[in-house]
Structure formats: C-alpha cells, structure tokens
C-alpha cells in the first residue's frame, strides 16, 4: 500500500525531534536553559512546546485523548521521550484505520478566550501546521546552540533518508 507523502513528512518530523532530544541528553542542565534573542525560549522549554503543540493538533483531530493539553504545562525534560512515543503512536493511527479525509471539519472549542466562538478547522491544516511548527521551533534550538558554539545534529530529510535507506549514492 502506498504511504501518503504527508505521513513521510510526519515521520521525519518525529525522527528530527527524537534526534534532537537524544542530542540534548548530552548537554548540561545549564546548556538546556540557554536561549538566544528572537527565539521562542530555552532549549528545554522549546522542546516541551514542540511536543505540546503536536499533542494539541492530535487532540483536535480526535486521534489522541483529551483534555486539550496546555502549553503552560511544561513537560519535564526526562519525560519528553515518553510524550514523543505517544505522539508517534497517534500519528501512525491517523492513516491506519480508515481513509483520512483532509477536508473533514473538526471543531475546537478550547479557545484562549473562553468567550470566543469555537473554531471550525479543516483537518489538513492540523497536519501541515504540525510539520511547520516542529521545523520552525527545532530551527530555534539550532540557532540557540549555534550561537553558543554548540554544533547540533543534522535534522534534514537527507539525513533521515540516509538513515532509513531511502537515498542511495551512486558512482
């Protein structure tokens, strides 16, 4: 069965976050709190924010159980891996059960201001935003590390493709 390209993109996204978490396990507690102007926050705080975003998109799609996680509920660094595995299981489930309908409208009543009306959102936006959000904030962490003289891991799809055998170099 053909794998949807968006599923490859989501799998790459999770691999990249996992690779970054693994790298960050080699950093000191002080390094995990590094930040840089113009980025989201600290290294550890940004990793938590990436996964909280992932969880919120998946709860909206109905493939992760609620309640809607709060971004203010920071995931402890040593629990990031467990959250990532739960996100991965939910992502794989999106395409396993039935045909994913990108135009299906989901309703998000958990607005920042409770008096705001619920949002009606087409499902495809959650998956595209999932990938955008991850790359965006991992780039922040890359900038923080680079600006402090720490060389981070290569997170692009070439590295993922090489790791998974999807790319072959020929003479």
């Amino acid at each position, binding site marked *: 069965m053909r794998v949807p390209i968006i599923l490859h993109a989501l799998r790459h996204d999770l691999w990249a976050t996992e690779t970054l978490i693994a790298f960050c396990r080699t950093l000191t507690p002080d390094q995990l709190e590094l930040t840089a102007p113009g980025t989201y926050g600290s290294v550890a705080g940004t990793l938590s924010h990436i996964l909280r975003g992932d969880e919120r998109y998946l709860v909206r799609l109905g493939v992760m159980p609620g309640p809607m996680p709060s971004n203010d509920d920071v995931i402890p660094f040593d629990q990031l891996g467990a959250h990532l595995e739960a996100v991965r299981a939910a992502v794989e489930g999106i395409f396993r059960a039935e045909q994913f309908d990108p135009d299906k409208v989901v309703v998000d009543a958990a607005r920042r201001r409770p008096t705001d009306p619920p949002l009606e959102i087409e499902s495809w936006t959650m998956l595209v*935003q999932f990938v955008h959000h991850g790359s965006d904030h991992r780039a922040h962490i890359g900038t923080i590390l680079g*600006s402090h003289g720490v060389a981070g891991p290569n997170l692009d799809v070439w590295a993922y493709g090489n790791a998974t055998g999807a790319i072959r170099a020929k003479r």
Partner: protein
Amino acid sequence: MTPIMQRQLRHDVWATEQLVAKCRTLNEDQLDLKIHGTYGSVRATLAHIVGTDESYLVRVLGSRLHDAPFRPVEDEVALEEIAAHLAHVNEGVERLFAGGEVDGDRFITDTPLRRPEQKRFEMYAWVPLTQFVHHGNDHRAQIATTLSAHGIEPPDLQVWPLAMAMGASREGSS
C-alpha cells in the same frame, strides 16, 4: 480532492511570499542583517530557500523550470530576482500536481541539474518533497529570528493565517 502534499507546498510558497513582501519594506542594510547560529543574511537565506526549492522541483519533475539554474551570489542578489524565481517555484508546484496525487514511492535516479563531476543520488520522490518543506520552514525560522533579534516584527508564517484567509479555518457559532 486536493492532495495534502500540494496544500503543504502551497503553504510553503505562501510563507516565503509573505517573507518577500515583508522584505520589500526593509532597506538594503536590513536585508543584510544576520546573527550567529543561522545560515547567513536575510537576503542570502531567502535566495538560498528559493534556489533550493527550484532544485528539489527539478529533481521530482525531471525537467528544468527554466534554462539557467538559479545559482546567484546570495549576498548580492536583488530581492526582485528572488521574487521572480519564487514565481517559478509556484508554477513548478502547480505543474507537479497538475495530474493529481504524486506517487511518493516513485524512484528517482538522477536530476537534470547534476553536473558530470557530481555524484549521482537515487531516492524516492517523497524525499525531496519532504525536504522542500523542512528546508523552507527551517530557513524561514532563521530569517524570522534574525528580524526579531534586530527589533523587526516578522510576519506570522504559520498555517493558521493562511487557513483563515482560505476559509479552511473559521469561527463557528457560539
């Protein structure tokens, strides 16, 4: 039904267009701003995004978007030249999906842009398409960080503002 990957690539092109529009409000010195830990100046990074987008599309399409590849001196290229090539990227994306869904498992054995002395890479079509999106998001984030670090508000490049503009996200009734 519009393929999700096409929607994803359209968001990517839209986001780069938003950045180009923002950059049109900056002066030449601001276009040359840079910070540590990023690819380079705002101008160079934008040129890098667009030039690389073209190369990914050429690989998947199997044909050039135009005669000479866009390989500018990234620190010197004019913003309008970048914008002109972004239009080629937009056309390439639409051409790619003109026949509907793209088979991501199709095996690509070479690219028309490879020089004879360069190594040849074989890969599935999903690889350059997924890299297209990752690469754009990654470098646009660097530009946004550079602008913010210098006190310039970057545009919101998330999917939400595009979805609101398209009607793919809207406020329902209370």
